[in-house]
């Protein structure tokens, strides 16, 4: 699956990801990260002021993205959007706000506890054109050419098979569809003595 990891290492990464995001879900806010989260993070990344003004504080507090995928292009009313690794669903709800009730948003995440939180926030906002479900980036449960845009925020860096995840995003996009991706990348080489490969997965 991943060319550099053994099967036990893959299982350990999967378990570590689940445990980390279970902790984030249980924390009730975005506080398990080393960069600004919540409304402070959204403001720094230039999220729409009307979102920051109109969304409930508990929804804004759940933001833990590494950037603003919406800064990469506009979403038009009526469009269909997939949010891969939606977590607590903040970006899915922002996408739902931008495409309006005539549009459609699907949020997908591997952590059931996060999907439960996303559904709770959706109910809090009272919007019906957004759905949330459990699933993996490497095996998207959607038909070909289903979405106008795919967004993701801080997720592909955790994918064990990044090429397959990108293939899947390409598959579900309509021709002319856009991939708008915020993610964490290496900007300096990891020193060889930093630790084992599994721990480095979260660097």
């Amino acid at each position, binding site marked *: 699956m991943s060319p550099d990891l053994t099967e036990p290492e893959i299982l350990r990464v999967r378990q570590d990801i689940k445990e980390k995001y279970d902790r984030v879900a249980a924390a009730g806010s975005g506080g398990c990260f080393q960069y600004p989260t919540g409304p402070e993070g959204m403001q720094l990344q230039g999220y729409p002021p009307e979102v920051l003004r109109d969304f409930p504080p508990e929804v804004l507090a759940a933001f833990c993205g590494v950037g603003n995928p919406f800064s990469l292009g506009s979403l038009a009313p009526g469009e269909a959007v997939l949010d891969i690794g939606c977590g607590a669903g903040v970006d899915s709800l922002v996408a739902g706000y931008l495409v309006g009730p005539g549009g459609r948003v699907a949020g997908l995440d591997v952590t059931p506890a996060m999907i439960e939180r996303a559904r709770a926030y959706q109910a809090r906002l009272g919007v019906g054109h957004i759905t949330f479900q459990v699933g993996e980036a490497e095996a998207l449960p959607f038909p070909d050419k289903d979405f106008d845009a795919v967004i993701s925020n801080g997720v592909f860096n955790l994918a064990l098979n990044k090429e397959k995840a*990108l293939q899947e995003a390409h598959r579900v996009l309509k021709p002319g569809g856009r991939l708008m991706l915020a993610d964490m990348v290496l900007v300096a080489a990891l020193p060889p003595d930093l630790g084992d490969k599994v721990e480095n997965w979260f660097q």
Partner: protein
Amino acid sequence: MLKVGFHRVSLLRYTGFKSSLYTEGALFYGEKPVDGQARETIVFQAEPSAEPLQEPACKPGGT
């Protein structure tokens, strides 16, 4: 992104959000070509800032 079929690919900019000494948020964009459309490849690639490595502060409750 190019390898799986996207075109007009950009690494538009870095976000300034760091999770460690070695990583930073970045913004990527790509389009799925329309059938029969000539593919364009990379249209822009930002460079990371030359700031010295600095451990980011851990937020309250951080891991």
